[in-house]
Protein backbone atom coordinates (compact mmCIF):
# COMPACT_ATOMS: atom_id res chain seq x y z
CA UNK A 1 0.00 0.00 0.00
CA UNK A 2 3.00 2.17 0.22
CA UNK A 3 4.84 2.10 -3.07
CA UNK A 4 7.21 5.02 -2.71
CA UNK A 5 10.67 5.95 -3.96
CA UNK A 6 13.40 8.27 -2.65
CA UNK A 7 13.90 11.31 -4.87
CA UNK A 8 16.35 14.19 -4.80
CA UNK A 9 14.82 17.67 -5.01
CA UNK A 10 16.24 19.52 -8.02
CA UNK A 11 14.08 22.66 -7.97
CA UNK A 12 11.26 24.17 -5.93
CA UNK A 13 8.38 26.39 -6.97
CA UNK A 14 6.09 27.03 -4.02
CA UNK A 15 4.29 23.78 -3.23
CA UNK A 16 5.59 22.14 -6.36
CA UNK A 17 8.98 20.71 -7.10
CA UNK A 18 10.99 18.76 -9.61
CA UNK A 19 12.87 15.79 -8.23
CA UNK A 20 15.18 13.23 -9.75
CA UNK A 21 15.20 9.46 -9.39
CA UNK A 22 17.07 6.81 -11.31
CA UNK A 23 17.80 8.75 -14.47
CA UNK A 24 14.49 10.58 -14.62
CA UNK A 25 13.02 13.85 -13.38
CA UNK A 26 9.49 14.04 -12.01
CA UNK A 27 7.02 16.70 -10.91
CA UNK A 28 6.13 16.30 -7.24
CA UNK A 29 4.12 18.09 -4.56
CA UNK A 30 5.88 19.37 -1.46
CA UNK A 31 2.82 20.34 0.64
CA UNK A 32 3.87 18.00 3.48
CA UNK A 33 7.50 19.13 3.65
CA UNK A 34 8.40 22.00 5.94
CA UNK A 35 10.94 24.35 4.30
CA UNK A 36 12.15 21.96 1.60
CA UNK A 37 15.61 22.53 0.16
CA UNK A 38 17.23 21.67 -3.14
CA UNK A 39 19.44 18.55 -2.95
CA UNK A 40 17.42 17.12 -0.07
CA UNK A 41 15.98 13.61 -0.46
CA UNK A 42 12.28 12.98 0.03
CA UNK A 43 10.17 9.80 -0.13
CA UNK A 44 7.56 10.19 -2.88
CA UNK A 45 4.23 8.34 -3.08
CA UNK A 46 1.50 8.99 -5.68
CA UNK A 47 3.25 12.19 -6.71
CA UNK A 48 3.59 13.72 -3.26
CA UNK A 49 6.59 13.85 -0.95
CA UNK A 50 5.68 12.17 2.35
CA UNK A 51 8.65 13.41 4.37
CA UNK A 52 12.35 14.08 4.08
CA UNK A 53 14.99 11.34 4.36
CA UNK A 54 17.71 11.83 6.94
CA UNK A 55 21.12 10.78 5.64
CA UNK A 56 22.70 10.78 9.11
CA UNK A 57 20.02 8.44 10.45
CA UNK A 58 20.48 6.24 7.39
CA UNK A 59 24.19 5.96 8.14
CA UNK A 60 23.38 5.11 11.77
CA UNK A 61 21.09 2.32 10.65
CA UNK A 62 23.71 0.94 8.28
CA UNK A 63 26.31 1.06 11.03
CA UNK A 64 24.00 -0.90 13.32
CA UNK A 65 23.34 -3.41 10.58
CA UNK A 66 27.02 -3.93 9.96
CA UNK A 67 27.49 -4.53 13.66
CA UNK A 68 24.83 -7.25 13.63
CA UNK A 69 26.56 -8.68 10.58
CA UNK A 70 29.94 -8.80 12.35
CA UNK A 71 28.47 -10.07 15.60
CA UNK A 72 26.62 -12.92 13.99
CA UNK A 73 29.78 -13.83 12.11
CA UNK A 74 31.68 -14.18 15.38
CA UNK A 75 28.90 -16.20 17.00
CA UNK A 76 28.70 -18.63 14.10
CA UNK A 77 32.44 -19.28 14.18
Amino acid sequence: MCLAVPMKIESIDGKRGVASFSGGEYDIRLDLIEAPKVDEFVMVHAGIALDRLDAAEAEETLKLLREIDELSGRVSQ
Partner: protein
Amino acid sequence: MEQQISLAHGSGGQLTRELVEHVFVPKLKNDILSRLTDAAELAVPGSRLMFTTDSFVIKPLEFPGGDIGKLSVCGTINDLAVSGARPMWISCGLIIEEGFSFERLERIVDSIARTTADAGVAVVCGDTKVVEHGSADGLFINTAGIGVPIRDYRSAPIQPGDKILVSGTIGDHEAAIFRVRENLGRRMELASDCAALHGLVETMLAAAPNIRVMRDPTRGGIGAVLNELATGTACSFTIEDDLIPMCDEVRGICELVGFDPMYLANEGKLVCFVPAKQAESLLQAMRSHPLGANAAIIGEAVADSRERVYLQSRFGGSRIVIMPTGVQLPRIC
Protein backbone atom coordinates in the same frame (compact mmCIF):
# COMPACT_ATOMS: atom_id res chain seq x y z
CA MET B 1 -2.59 16.18 -54.80
CA GLU B 2 -4.85 16.42 -51.76
CA GLN B 3 -3.27 16.76 -48.36
CA GLN B 4 -5.50 14.20 -46.64
CA ILE B 5 -6.24 10.54 -47.20
CA SER B 6 -9.88 10.03 -48.14
CA LEU B 7 -12.00 6.96 -48.57
CA ALA B 8 -11.40 7.21 -52.33
CA HIS B 9 -7.71 6.44 -51.89
CA GLY B 10 -8.68 2.96 -50.70
CA SER B 11 -11.32 2.21 -53.28
CA GLY B 12 -8.97 0.68 -55.89
CA GLY B 13 -9.61 3.40 -58.46
CA GLN B 14 -7.61 6.29 -59.80
CA LEU B 15 -6.72 7.77 -56.41
CA THR B 16 -5.43 4.41 -55.15
CA ARG B 17 -3.21 4.11 -58.18
CA GLU B 18 -1.92 7.62 -57.69
CA LEU B 19 -1.13 6.93 -54.05
CA VAL B 20 0.85 3.83 -54.99
CA GLU B 21 2.63 5.38 -57.99
CA HIS B 22 3.44 8.68 -56.36
CA VAL B 23 4.23 7.56 -52.80
CA PHE B 24 4.95 3.87 -52.32
CA VAL B 25 6.82 3.02 -55.52
CA PRO B 26 9.21 5.97 -55.65
CA LYS B 27 10.01 5.73 -51.95
CA LEU B 28 10.27 1.96 -51.65
CA LYS B 29 12.14 1.58 -54.99
CA ASN B 30 12.62 -1.96 -56.20
CA ASP B 31 12.06 -3.75 -59.53
CA ILE B 32 9.60 -6.24 -58.16
CA LEU B 33 7.34 -3.60 -56.67
CA SER B 34 7.55 -1.39 -59.78
CA ARG B 35 5.96 -4.13 -61.86
CA LEU B 36 2.79 -3.56 -59.85
CA THR B 37 1.42 -7.05 -60.47
CA ASP B 38 -1.11 -8.59 -58.07
CA ALA B 39 1.39 -10.98 -56.64
CA ALA B 40 5.17 -10.62 -56.30
CA GLU B 41 7.20 -13.22 -58.17
CA LEU B 42 10.25 -14.34 -56.10
CA ALA B 43 13.28 -16.34 -57.16
CA VAL B 44 13.70 -19.09 -54.59
CA PRO B 45 17.37 -19.66 -53.62
CA GLY B 46 16.90 -22.83 -51.55
CA SER B 47 14.16 -25.27 -50.74
CA ARG B 48 13.27 -23.71 -47.36
CA LEU B 49 11.73 -20.30 -46.82
CA MET B 50 10.65 -18.77 -43.48
CA PHE B 51 7.47 -16.72 -43.71
CA THR B 52 5.86 -14.62 -40.98
CA THR B 53 3.30 -11.87 -40.47
CA ASP B 54 2.47 -9.34 -37.79
CA SER B 55 0.09 -6.42 -37.32
CA PHE B 56 0.83 -3.14 -35.64
CA VAL B 57 -1.68 -0.94 -33.87
CA ILE B 58 0.54 1.04 -31.54
CA LYS B 59 -0.42 4.35 -30.01
CA PRO B 60 1.13 6.88 -30.24
CA LEU B 61 2.09 6.32 -33.87
CA GLU B 62 5.35 8.21 -33.46
CA PHE B 63 7.47 7.87 -30.32
CA PRO B 64 11.06 8.34 -29.14
CA GLY B 65 13.15 5.75 -30.95
CA GLY B 66 10.75 5.06 -33.79
CA ASP B 67 7.27 4.98 -35.18
CA ILE B 68 4.69 2.47 -36.35
CA GLY B 69 6.42 2.21 -39.72
CA LYS B 70 9.82 1.29 -38.33
CA LEU B 71 8.16 -0.99 -35.80
CA SER B 72 6.18 -2.87 -38.44
CA VAL B 73 9.32 -3.61 -40.42
CA CYS B 74 11.51 -4.53 -37.44
CA GLY B 75 8.81 -6.67 -35.88
CA THR B 76 8.50 -8.91 -38.91
CA ILE B 77 12.26 -8.92 -39.57
CA ASN B 78 12.85 -9.99 -35.99
CA ASP B 79 10.38 -12.86 -36.17
CA LEU B 80 12.37 -14.09 -39.16
CA ALA B 81 15.73 -13.36 -37.55
CA VAL B 82 15.04 -15.31 -34.38
CA SER B 83 13.94 -18.22 -36.55
CA GLY B 84 17.47 -18.13 -37.92
CA ALA B 85 16.44 -16.66 -41.25
CA ARG B 86 17.83 -13.81 -43.23
CA PRO B 87 14.83 -11.59 -44.03
CA MET B 88 14.44 -10.89 -47.72
CA TRP B 89 10.99 -9.67 -48.68
CA ILE B 90 8.27 -7.88 -46.78
CA SER B 91 4.65 -7.18 -47.61
CA CYS B 92 3.00 -4.12 -46.15
CA GLY B 93 -0.72 -3.59 -45.74
CA LEU B 94 -2.06 -0.28 -44.46
CA ILE B 95 -5.43 0.44 -42.97
CA ILE B 96 -5.73 4.20 -42.81
CA GLU B 97 -8.39 6.19 -41.04
CA GLU B 98 -10.21 8.74 -43.17
CA GLY B 99 -8.82 12.21 -42.44
CA PHE B 100 -5.32 11.01 -41.69
CA SER B 101 -2.73 13.63 -42.56
CA PHE B 102 -0.97 13.05 -45.88
CA GLU B 103 2.21 14.53 -44.56
CA ARG B 104 2.17 12.16 -41.65
CA LEU B 105 1.58 9.19 -43.91
CA GLU B 106 4.55 10.19 -46.03
CA ARG B 107 6.70 10.51 -42.95
CA ILE B 108 5.79 7.01 -41.84
CA VAL B 109 6.36 5.56 -45.31
CA ASP B 110 9.74 7.33 -45.36
CA SER B 111 10.48 5.58 -42.09
CA ILE B 112 9.53 2.22 -43.59
CA ALA B 113 11.77 3.01 -46.54
CA ARG B 114 14.72 3.91 -44.35
CA THR B 115 14.28 0.89 -42.12
CA THR B 116 14.01 -1.53 -45.03
CA ALA B 117 16.98 0.04 -46.81
CA ASP B 118 19.14 -0.17 -43.70
CA ALA B 119 18.06 -3.74 -43.17
CA GLY B 120 18.67 -4.77 -46.76
CA VAL B 121 15.09 -5.95 -47.29
CA ALA B 122 12.46 -4.83 -49.79
CA VAL B 123 8.73 -4.17 -49.53
CA VAL B 124 7.61 -6.10 -52.58
CA CYS B 125 3.85 -6.03 -52.28
CA GLY B 126 1.28 -4.19 -50.33
CA ASP B 127 -2.31 -3.16 -49.86
CA THR B 128 -4.09 -0.02 -48.78
CA LYS B 129 -7.51 0.37 -47.29
CA VAL B 130 -9.10 3.53 -45.97
CA VAL B 131 -11.80 3.28 -43.35
CA GLU B 132 -14.28 5.79 -42.06
CA HIS B 133 -13.32 8.24 -39.40
CA GLY B 134 -13.48 6.49 -36.06
CA SER B 135 -13.03 2.98 -37.43
CA ALA B 136 -9.28 2.80 -36.94
CA ASP B 137 -6.86 4.46 -34.57
CA GLY B 138 -5.27 6.63 -37.24
CA LEU B 139 -3.28 3.88 -38.88
CA PHE B 140 -2.94 0.10 -38.63
CA ILE B 141 -0.16 -1.76 -40.41
CA ASN B 142 0.23 -5.41 -41.23
CA THR B 143 3.52 -6.78 -42.53
CA ALA B 144 4.43 -10.25 -43.64
CA GLY B 145 7.94 -11.38 -44.41
CA ILE B 146 9.83 -14.15 -46.13
CA GLY B 147 13.34 -15.16 -45.23
CA VAL B 148 15.99 -17.72 -46.08
CA PRO B 149 17.59 -19.86 -43.35
CA ILE B 150 21.09 -18.71 -42.38
CA ARG B 151 23.59 -21.58 -42.73
CA ASP B 152 20.68 -23.98 -42.89
CA TYR B 153 19.85 -23.19 -39.23
CA ARG B 154 17.27 -25.23 -37.40
CA SER B 155 16.27 -24.76 -33.77
CA ALA B 156 16.82 -27.65 -31.36
CA PRO B 157 15.31 -28.72 -28.01
CA ILE B 158 16.60 -27.02 -24.89
CA GLN B 159 18.81 -29.25 -22.71
CA PRO B 160 19.69 -29.12 -19.00
CA GLY B 161 22.82 -27.05 -18.59
CA ASP B 162 22.05 -24.72 -21.50
CA LYS B 163 22.82 -21.10 -20.76
CA ILE B 164 20.29 -18.33 -21.24
CA LEU B 165 21.40 -15.05 -22.82
CA VAL B 166 19.67 -11.77 -23.45
CA SER B 167 20.99 -9.32 -26.04
CA GLY B 168 20.66 -6.15 -23.99
CA THR B 169 18.63 -4.02 -21.59
CA ILE B 170 15.03 -5.08 -21.02
CA GLY B 171 11.86 -3.02 -20.87
CA ASP B 172 13.03 -0.02 -22.91
CA HIS B 173 10.23 -0.10 -25.46
CA GLU B 174 7.24 -0.46 -23.19
CA ALA B 175 8.65 1.93 -20.59
CA ALA B 176 9.30 4.56 -23.28
CA ILE B 177 5.78 4.23 -24.71
CA PHE B 178 4.21 4.26 -21.26
CA ARG B 179 6.13 7.37 -20.28
CA VAL B 180 5.05 9.23 -23.40
CA ARG B 181 1.41 8.15 -23.18
CA GLU B 182 1.08 9.01 -19.51
CA ASN B 183 3.24 12.10 -19.79
CA LEU B 184 5.20 10.84 -16.83
CA GLY B 185 8.34 12.61 -15.84
CA ARG B 186 10.26 15.21 -17.74
CA ARG B 187 13.55 15.27 -19.62
CA MET B 188 14.34 11.60 -19.65
CA GLU B 189 16.63 9.74 -22.03
CA LEU B 190 14.27 6.94 -22.70
CA ALA B 191 13.56 5.64 -26.19
CA SER B 192 12.12 2.51 -27.66
CA ASP B 193 14.78 -0.05 -28.53
CA CYS B 194 13.03 -0.74 -31.84
CA ALA B 195 15.66 -2.32 -34.09
CA ALA B 196 16.14 -5.04 -36.72
CA LEU B 197 18.10 -7.93 -35.22
CA HIS B 198 19.05 -10.02 -38.23
CA GLY B 199 22.59 -8.64 -38.41
CA LEU B 200 23.13 -9.56 -34.77
CA VAL B 201 21.71 -13.02 -35.41
CA GLU B 202 24.12 -13.58 -38.33
CA THR B 203 27.00 -12.72 -36.00
CA MET B 204 25.60 -15.03 -33.33
CA LEU B 205 25.14 -18.02 -35.63
CA ALA B 206 28.68 -17.60 -36.94
CA ALA B 207 30.03 -17.82 -33.37
CA ALA B 208 27.64 -20.49 -32.07
CA PRO B 209 25.99 -22.57 -34.79
CA ASN B 210 24.37 -24.78 -32.15
CA ILE B 211 22.14 -22.13 -30.63
CA ARG B 212 19.10 -24.09 -29.50
CA VAL B 213 16.44 -21.45 -29.86
CA MET B 214 15.97 -17.68 -30.04
CA ARG B 215 12.96 -15.50 -29.40
CA ASP B 216 12.19 -11.81 -29.47
CA PRO B 217 10.38 -10.89 -26.23
CA THR B 218 7.76 -8.42 -27.44
CA ARG B 219 4.39 -8.17 -25.66
CA GLY B 220 4.69 -10.01 -22.33
CA GLY B 221 8.43 -9.49 -22.07
CA ILE B 222 11.08 -12.07 -21.22
CA GLY B 223 8.71 -13.47 -18.58
CA ALA B 224 6.24 -14.60 -21.23
CA VAL B 225 8.89 -15.89 -23.61
CA LEU B 226 10.70 -17.94 -20.97
CA ASN B 227 7.45 -19.52 -19.82
CA GLU B 228 6.50 -20.38 -23.39
CA LEU B 229 9.90 -21.92 -24.02
CA ALA B 230 9.84 -24.00 -20.83
CA THR B 231 6.79 -25.96 -21.93
CA GLY B 232 7.67 -29.46 -23.06
CA THR B 233 11.37 -29.23 -22.19
CA ALA B 234 11.37 -31.09 -18.85
CA CYS B 235 13.53 -28.18 -17.71
CA SER B 236 13.11 -25.27 -15.37
CA PHE B 237 14.99 -22.04 -15.95
CA THR B 238 16.80 -20.20 -13.17
CA ILE B 239 17.55 -16.54 -13.89
CA GLU B 240 19.63 -14.29 -11.65
CA ASP B 241 17.96 -10.95 -11.01
CA ASP B 242 21.21 -8.99 -10.79
CA LEU B 243 22.44 -10.31 -14.14
CA ILE B 244 19.51 -8.98 -16.16
CA PRO B 245 20.60 -5.79 -17.94
CA MET B 246 18.31 -2.85 -17.35
CA CYS B 247 18.90 0.85 -17.77
CA ASP B 248 18.40 3.24 -14.86
CA GLU B 249 15.46 5.04 -16.43
CA VAL B 250 13.50 1.82 -16.92
CA ARG B 251 14.37 0.60 -13.44
CA GLY B 252 13.18 3.95 -12.09
CA ILE B 253 9.85 3.85 -13.87
CA CYS B 254 9.25 0.27 -12.74
CA GLU B 255 9.92 1.17 -9.11
CA LEU B 256 7.82 4.31 -9.36
CA VAL B 257 4.67 2.79 -10.80
CA GLY B 258 5.08 -0.81 -9.69
CA PHE B 259 5.84 -2.49 -13.02
CA ASP B 260 7.52 -5.87 -13.12
CA PRO B 261 10.29 -5.50 -15.73
CA MET B 262 10.03 -9.21 -16.58
CA TYR B 263 6.79 -8.50 -18.42
CA LEU B 264 7.67 -5.32 -20.29
CA ALA B 265 7.72 -5.44 -24.10
CA ASN B 266 10.96 -5.16 -26.05
CA GLU B 267 11.25 -4.43 -29.76
CA GLY B 268 14.98 -4.72 -30.37
CA LYS B 269 16.10 -7.54 -28.10
CA LEU B 270 16.32 -11.29 -28.20
CA VAL B 271 16.62 -14.13 -25.74
CA CYS B 272 18.48 -17.31 -26.66
CA PHE B 273 19.49 -20.69 -25.29
CA VAL B 274 22.90 -22.15 -26.10
CA PRO B 275 24.93 -25.19 -24.97
CA ALA B 276 27.02 -24.14 -21.97
CA LYS B 277 30.32 -24.68 -23.78
CA GLN B 278 29.47 -22.05 -26.40
CA ALA B 279 28.01 -19.48 -24.04
CA GLU B 280 31.12 -17.37 -23.48
CA SER B 281 32.13 -17.18 -27.12
CA LEU B 282 28.55 -16.38 -28.07
CA LEU B 283 28.47 -13.63 -25.46
CA GLN B 284 31.66 -12.08 -26.84
CA ALA B 285 30.33 -12.22 -30.37
CA MET B 286 27.10 -10.52 -29.31
CA ARG B 287 28.92 -7.81 -27.42
CA SER B 288 31.01 -7.05 -30.48
CA HIS B 289 27.82 -6.11 -32.36
CA PRO B 290 26.23 -2.68 -31.73
CA LEU B 291 22.84 -4.24 -30.93
CA GLY B 292 24.38 -6.68 -28.46
CA ALA B 293 26.67 -4.30 -26.55
CA ASN B 294 24.88 -5.01 -23.26
CA ALA B 295 24.34 -8.71 -23.84
CA ALA B 296 24.55 -10.92 -20.77
CA ILE B 297 24.30 -14.51 -19.64
CA ILE B 298 21.38 -14.36 -17.24
CA GLY B 299 20.76 -17.94 -16.21
CA GLU B 300 20.51 -21.56 -17.18
CA ALA B 301 18.22 -24.50 -17.72
CA VAL B 302 18.10 -27.28 -15.17
CA ALA B 303 16.43 -30.66 -15.42
CA ASP B 304 13.07 -30.32 -13.68
CA SER B 305 9.74 -31.79 -14.63
CA ARG B 306 7.92 -28.79 -13.12
CA GLU B 307 9.05 -26.63 -16.06
CA ARG B 308 9.02 -23.35 -14.17
CA VAL B 309 10.89 -20.09 -14.44
CA TYR B 310 12.69 -18.98 -11.26
CA LEU B 311 14.14 -15.57 -10.55
CA GLN B 312 16.85 -15.66 -7.93
CA SER B 313 17.52 -12.58 -5.83
CA ARG B 314 20.99 -11.58 -4.71
CA PHE B 315 20.04 -12.71 -1.22
CA GLY B 316 19.67 -16.31 -2.29
CA GLY B 317 15.89 -16.49 -2.15
CA SER B 318 13.88 -16.89 -5.31
CA ARG B 319 10.46 -16.28 -6.76
CA ILE B 320 8.72 -17.95 -9.65
CA VAL B 321 7.85 -16.02 -12.80
CA ILE B 322 4.43 -16.91 -14.17
CA MET B 323 2.93 -16.08 -17.56
CA PRO B 324 1.69 -12.49 -17.50
CA THR B 325 -2.06 -12.23 -17.09
CA GLY B 326 -2.72 -8.92 -18.76
CA VAL B 327 -1.46 -5.42 -19.32
CA GLN B 328 0.33 -3.97 -16.31
CA LEU B 329 -1.22 -0.89 -14.77
CA PRO B 330 0.48 1.71 -12.60
CA ARG B 331 -0.27 1.08 -8.96
CA ILE B 332 0.29 2.72 -5.58
CA CYS B 333 0.27 -0.44 -3.49
